[in-house]
């Protein structure tokens, strides 16, 4: 029984339980529903919840734990001698899983029948060719022990899946029966059902916490693996970034950090004045008509996905900067450069800066403006000497948020900044950033358990910590600022 089917059956049982439960509640008072403590459907709901929730939770937990259990069982079959030079148990287990699912396919396609499978001996039959026929490609011939493990894996998985289905269905029926037995006119069904719903609400709000925990856990776990293979001191202080397939790589974060900060700096230099001026003009000067055109246009800019900006950098801004600035000035011949990525990222940040600044500028009370105009100040004097100083904390918060966005931005730099890790000042040169390297190290062909791949997690952790600090600081400043005017 597939998982989907199990869920369907459980839900079906629960639904039936709902109707029976409601009917029982009604019949328990001989149709006079006024004598019930709660509305009849609440009695049905309790049956539904008692039946569905435990069964589904158990199914979910089972699904998460089953692979761990099975691998533990099966990995015993594989002897240390079966693991080829340069390979690892993890890789062999990946093969086991692959062969096992290949066998499933073969059985489903009718190439193998179940009896033939149990008789099959990997030392005699060419399993690789067999599986190749049904479209499962294997890198090498199958070792008998590996094949045995795969067969065992498949069998255990199938047994456990059956057991899971049985347990889920039994739980569903059991839950329904218990809830059903509890129905009587004084039973506070509404309170029970509401308590259950409230628990579901609380459970949902835990997802956000779990996400953060998941992020921190996964980053920390793999980063500590990385630091076991590569010294932390070198990671933080080495001035070169030069990953090698053969090992002996230099994995210093500094060149990447420099590229990240340089690109972000260019982007902010571009976006902050423009965004701020746009916000000021729109809130203090623009006529209603201008506002009604410019505001939606800026919102459009904000809604465009970053991949579009990336493409814009790649096919338009990059060649433009190279042909009209970098080459005539003799500063470089690369279309991807710090300036390309920075300018395009700046465009992306304009709406971000302007809408955040718009909020804080509008939060400055009208009384401040009146006070200034009443003294005979011009609009620009009012803006520069009263509104901006008053809104300054909020604007600083907005800039910090924009900086955090710039540092974490990926697609624009992947497509616009280049891939060479350099410590250079020339903005027309290609440089690379932390996010670019996270992508390239995790989408490359290197083995997962190598420092060259795991470094991505250390980079991710650094990125997460930096942006988190910026965000917390920015949110704190903005909140403080809001309180001042409320």
């Amino acid at each position, binding site marked *: 029984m597939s998982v989907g089917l199990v869920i369907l059956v459980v839900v079906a049982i629960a639904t039936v339980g709902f109707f029976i439960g409601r009917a029982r509640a009604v019949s328990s008072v001989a149709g006079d529903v006024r004598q019930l403590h709660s509305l009849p459907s609440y009695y049905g709901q309790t049956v539904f919840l008692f039946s569905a929730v435990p069964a589904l939770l158990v199914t979910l937990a089972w699904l*998460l734990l089953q692979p761990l259990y099975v691998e533990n069982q099966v990995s015993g079959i594989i002897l240390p001698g079966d693991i080829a030079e340069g390979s690892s148990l993890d890789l062999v287990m990946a093969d086991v899983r692959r062969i096992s699912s290949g066998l499933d396919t073969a059985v489903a396609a009718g190439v193998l029948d179940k009896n033939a499978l149990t008789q099959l001996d990997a030392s005699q039959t060419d399993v690789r060719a067999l599986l190749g026929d049904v479209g499962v490609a294997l890198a090498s011939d199958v070792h008998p022990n590996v094949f045995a493990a795969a067969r065992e894996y498949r069998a255990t998985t199938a047994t456990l899946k059956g057991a899971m289905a049985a347990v889920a269905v039994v739980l569903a029926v059991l839950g329904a029966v218990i809830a059903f037995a509890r129905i009587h006119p004084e039973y506070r069904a*509404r309170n029970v059902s*509401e308590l259950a719903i*409230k628990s*579901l609400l609380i*459970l*949902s*709000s835990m*997802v*956000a*916490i779990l996400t*953060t925990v998941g*992020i921190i856990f*996964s*980053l920390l*776990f793999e980063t500590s693996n990385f630091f076991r293979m590569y010294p932390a001191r070198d990671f933080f202080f080495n001035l070169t970034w030069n990953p090698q397939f053969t090992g002996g790589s230099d994995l210093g974060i500094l060149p990447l950090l420099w590229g990240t900060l340089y690109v972000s700096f260019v982007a902010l230099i571009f976006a902050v*004045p*423009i*965004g701020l*001026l*746009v916000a000021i*003009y729109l809130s203090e*000067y623009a006529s209603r008509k201008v506002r009604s055109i*410019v505001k939606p*246009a800026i919102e*459009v*800019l904000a*809604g*465009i*996905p*970053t*991949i*579009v900006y990336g*493409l*814009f950098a*790649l*096919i*338009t801004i990059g060649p433009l900067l190279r042909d009209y600035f970098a080459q005539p000035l003799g500063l470089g011949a690369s279309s991807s450069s710090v300036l390309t990525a920075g300018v395009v990222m700046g*465009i992306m940040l*304009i709406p971000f800066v302007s809408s955040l600044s718009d909020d804080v500028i509008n939060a400055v009370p009208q009384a401040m403006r009146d006070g200034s105009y009443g003294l005979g100040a*011009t*609009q*620009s004097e009012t803006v520069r000497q009263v509104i901006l100083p008053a809104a300054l904390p909020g604007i600083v918060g907005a800039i910090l948020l924009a900086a*955090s*966005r710039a540092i*974490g931005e*990926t697609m624009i730099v992947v*497509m616009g900044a280049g891939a060479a890790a350099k410590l250079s000042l020339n903005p027309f040169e290609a440089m690379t950033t932390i*996010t670019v390297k*996270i*992508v390239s190290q*995790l989408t490359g062909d290197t083995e*997962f358990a190598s420092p060259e791949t795991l470094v*991505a997690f250390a980079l*991710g952790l650094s*990125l997460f910590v930096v*942006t988190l600090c910026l*965000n*917390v600081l920015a*949110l704190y400043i903005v909140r403080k600022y809001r309180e001042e005017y409320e």
Partner: protein
Amino acid sequence: MTDVTSGANMAPKPKTSLLVQDARTKRRNAAEARFRTYGVVAITIAMLALVGLLSSILYNGSSAFRQTFITLDVYLDPAKLDKDGSGDIAKIAKVTTFGYAPLIKKSFEAEFEKSGIGVDGMKSKDAAKMISKEGPAELRRFVLAHPHMIGETVTFEFLASGRIDGYYKGRVTMKSAEIDKNVSPQQLQLADQLKAAGLLETKWNWGFLTRADASENRPEAAGLGVAILGSFYMMIVVLCLALPIGVATSIYLEEFAPRNWITDVIEVNISNLAAVPSIVFGILGLAIFINFAGLPQSAPIVGGLVLTLMTLPTIIIATRASLKAVPPSIRDAALGVGASKMQAVFHHVLPLAAPGILTGTIIGLAQALGETAPLLLIGMVAFVREFPGAPPEGFFDPAAALPVQVYNWTQRADPAFVERASGAIIVLLVFLLCMNAIAILLRRRFERRW
């Protein structure tokens, strides 16, 4: 209050007329005008950036929706396709794609003879190269689907190769063809003759929306079918998970949560999650969903889960705002007639907040649809030619996604892929536009002011 008199000894200000601006006022007004100009310049730059961005994409991408086709009469030679004449599909299937290439060559020869077109010194082998490498494969698929047609002559519309297509889109010229090993000036001359004879045509290309991706050297056959379907599957996952979880979280936080440190932690957490770089969610997806939970790479379910976690804060923030906008008097009224808190929320507050929630959800979905970086890390960047199956199993099949497909195409060498990538962006933007339009309509239609 005797201090006041001390001010009286100040020299009285000279009388000035309001009708004449003094020098200082003139200077101040000039500064005012300058400042205003800065504002106008800033807005102009922002608008120019938007226009530049959109027109660059449109300019580069609109041609992706048109494609050059060559129409040929192909004789499905039984001697090549079905040697023993048995009509047995299994035997016909043994003829590989290579076996079909000579048929195309033959039909060019026939065409040369029939209509007298042709370029001196050009062999039919070279002419056949004007057809996309996808051509023989398409022909084979056709024959396998209609084996009874063997022995007959069919009129078949082939995709022209990327270079021939590029010639009609201005990407390839006679000059560039001289130094290009993939196309020769003779081929271009022949193409012009075919066009004059009505056999070559550049027209609207549904294939761009329906075909799967194609390999590096056949850009003309690459389409967005798998990517659109993959993105659609992911959006379904996001909608089914993010909406209920987001609404439940918002209801709890807004209506039930006690004011204590746990609630504070959740709230701070959500606002921070909203600002976590998207790529970090990709790392999370790789570590938790793929490495730990063992879900398959490149699958829409994993993409959907990652995007769900990313979208949740957006939906929660929007939902809470619209729950807040429902005045407390509604809750009081419901509680006043004896409804439980839960009933008040589900019967009254939630329906009133629904339009705002939907608007927020659509905007969240639009964000998720355009997100690229996290999908790269969970393997969506892989080359996928097969369409994913029907749900629910299809959620676990490898698929592409629209924005990732764009990225994929930009990484390829053939310049024809730049056109494809820009075209894909247009498709993506059209989807986003539709979603935002729906959100705006919903807001206009149901917006309620209390």
